[in-house]
């Protein structure tokens, strides 16, 4: 094929131009550490990267939700622990008070003790964590349990503030379409008709009245009340374990997702540097050859 001078020059310039173009692109990749500068660098990879980033963000949010949930559940567990201790103390006291050998003065003293435990019970029943009541269901602000008091300030009865007890679930999102309830309904702890309070009020009144037989009659209720609390403690423990497993799974997912994302988006630096050096070497060779070729013309040889 006939080769004109222009063809030679054009071909050489073209090669150099293309080499520069490739080197420039590589420089951008290496300095950013990213394989993908714009979607067209790898459209399928971009779609994957977007999906992975999205899942990572959601994962982080669910993790935050779980932390909050766990804190609430732990606060509930701690309170249930105190309630169990309280229940245990009531059992011991009631058993002793029921002993017919107790005199009226001793019984009166038990009565005051029961009263003080009653006030404790009310206070624990209205406990809160982070401004949210533990046992109020979805009625989270105001104290769920209120006391009616007599002229001397003693509790006469305890009722739920808003009529029927609120057994609503406090729901938390912990995964895609995964929701868990983190609260314990008050009725599970204190009884459907607040028997725990009724028992303790009755105990106090009986003790103050010096009626050891009445106290003895209440012992089975005391046991039932205490068992309710310990059962709820077990359930609460299970919830905390479940939350722990969710959190663990999220952590493992996060590690996997991040590894995948990095695989798609991040540049293999050592590989890139090798290719970059190769490209530079080729450019050098190209330029050296250019100078040789351009020197050769017939004009040099004609005198």
């Amino acid at each position: 094929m006939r080769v004109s001078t222009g063809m030679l020059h054009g071909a050489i310039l073209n090669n150099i131009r293309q080499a520069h173009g490739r080197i420039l692109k590589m420089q951008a990749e290496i300095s950013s550490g990213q394989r993908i500068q714009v979607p067209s660098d790898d459209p399928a990879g971009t779609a994957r990267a977007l999906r992975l980033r999205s899942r990572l963000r959601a994962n982080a949010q669910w993790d935050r939700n779980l932390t909050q949930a766990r804190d609430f559940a732990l606060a509930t567990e701690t309170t249930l622990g105190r309630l169990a201790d309280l229940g245990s103390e009531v059992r011991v006291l009631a058993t002793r008070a029921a002993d017919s050998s107790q005199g009226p003065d001793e019984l009166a003293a038990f009565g005051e003790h029961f009263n003080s435990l009653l006030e404790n019970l009310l206070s624990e029943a209205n406990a809160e964590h982070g401004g949210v009541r533990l046992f109020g269901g979805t009625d989270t602000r105001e104290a769920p349990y209120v006391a009616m008091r007599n002229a001397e300030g003693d509790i006469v009865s305890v009722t739920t503030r808003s009529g029927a007890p609120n057994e609503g679930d406090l729901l938390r999102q912990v995964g895609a379409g995964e929701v868990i309830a983190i609260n314990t309904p008050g009725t599970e702890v204190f009884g459907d008709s607040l028997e725990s309070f009724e028992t303790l009020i009755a105990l106090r009144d009986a003790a103050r009245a010096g009626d050891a037989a009445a106290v003895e009659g209440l012992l089975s209720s005391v046991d039932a009340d205490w068992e309710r609390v310990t059962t709820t403690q077990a359930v609460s423990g299970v919830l905390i374990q479940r939350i722990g497993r969710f959190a663990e799974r999220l952590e493992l997912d996060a590690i996997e997702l991040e590894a995948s994302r990095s695989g798609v988006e991040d540049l293999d630096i050592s590989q890139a540097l090798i290719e970059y050096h190769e490209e530079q070497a080729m450019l050098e060779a190209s330029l050296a050859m250019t100078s040789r070729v351009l020197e050769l013309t017939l004009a040099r040889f004609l005198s």
Partner: protein
Amino acid sequence: MPGLTHTLEIARRAMMTHQSVLSVIGHNIANANVSGYSRQVARLAAEKPLHTTGFDWGNGVGLEGIERRRHLFLDQRVRSEMTALGRWRMRADVLGQIETSLTEPSESGLGAALDDFWNAWSELSSNPQDMALRANLVEKSQVLTERFRTLDQRISSMRAELQVQLAYEVDSFNDKLERLESISRQLVDAEKSGAMANDLRDQRDRLLDEMSLLADISWHEQGDGSLTLRVGNRVVLDAVTREPLSVNRLAGDVTGGSIGALLELREETLPQMGSDLDLLAADLVQQVNARHRTGPSRGDFFSGSSAGEIAVAAEIVNDPLAINASTSGEAGENDIALAIAQLQSERIISGGRMTTSEYWGALVSQLGVMTQEARFQEENGEMVTEATKAQRESVQGVSLDEEMANMVSTQHAYLAAARVFDVASQMLETLMEV
């Protein structure tokens, strides 16, 4: 018998002829670096013989013509490749600009804003009455709506820029068209006498090359040298008329070159992108509002229903307490907040076919595919154009070495002819002295 004077005449004519050849060689060398220049070749031929005394006596050499080395078929191929290249180059350029403005994948893209929006609802569901979380939700929602509006605006302003660019390219085309007409006229005049107007033809071919980048042109040379030029099916130039392109009435006529690409981008590609974005905004607004309205205020969370107008409802911006986190409004209830947070993983976009992030991912990667294809075709087109140009160059390009070799042989021929002249002249003198 033709005598010495006849020989002198042959030598003289040979010397003149070779001077002409040198002139052509000189013209080629002078124009070696002029782009689009077609080399010229002096065509020599033996003169008609003289028939006398029973013999055919040769009459020396004469210049038969100065030929222009050009390959019509290669011209067509180069120009059709250039039309394709012009189109892909413009597409790659514009699409590249759009995909850069998407800023994906990154924290500043729409994808991240969507995720933050869903997360803010999830966060609120854990503590529905918290004022700080409500304020956070409003803020994240505003970031989201702003990114929608910014993208929408980017598409609109891109369309406006394309319009300006289009006007510019059309003007450029019409400019060349006018020059083409003028050169064609000159050419027709010059060639009436029978000689080829080689340099005018070169000028005309250069213009045609430039115009082929702009639009899908086709041309046909008439017998008298005049040119009929079409863009698509429309005649824009012939022997009697010139019809410039009009920016506002191009649709359907121009399908190739940079003008064709600009038209397609402005009329199809960008509007499609805009409506794809609008669909995402509209479905998002509809789904979120539908749930939000079941709350105490019965109000909307978003206002507007397109990417250009989407915003957080004014009542909510003014008072984050107006956000309905639950149907009952009770302190611990969070059913609406939970439901909306769950929308993140539900297929709520495009008739229930995709989640918001699937849809956005598809939109982004679709643009990426289009841009990648345009870039690939541009690169490919450049290579093919260079290759076909090289083939054309092979026919029409000047090789300095070749010209210099020809120059040397022309010089030798001239010297030899001068020698003949000298000898014949001396012989005549001898004759005179007898």
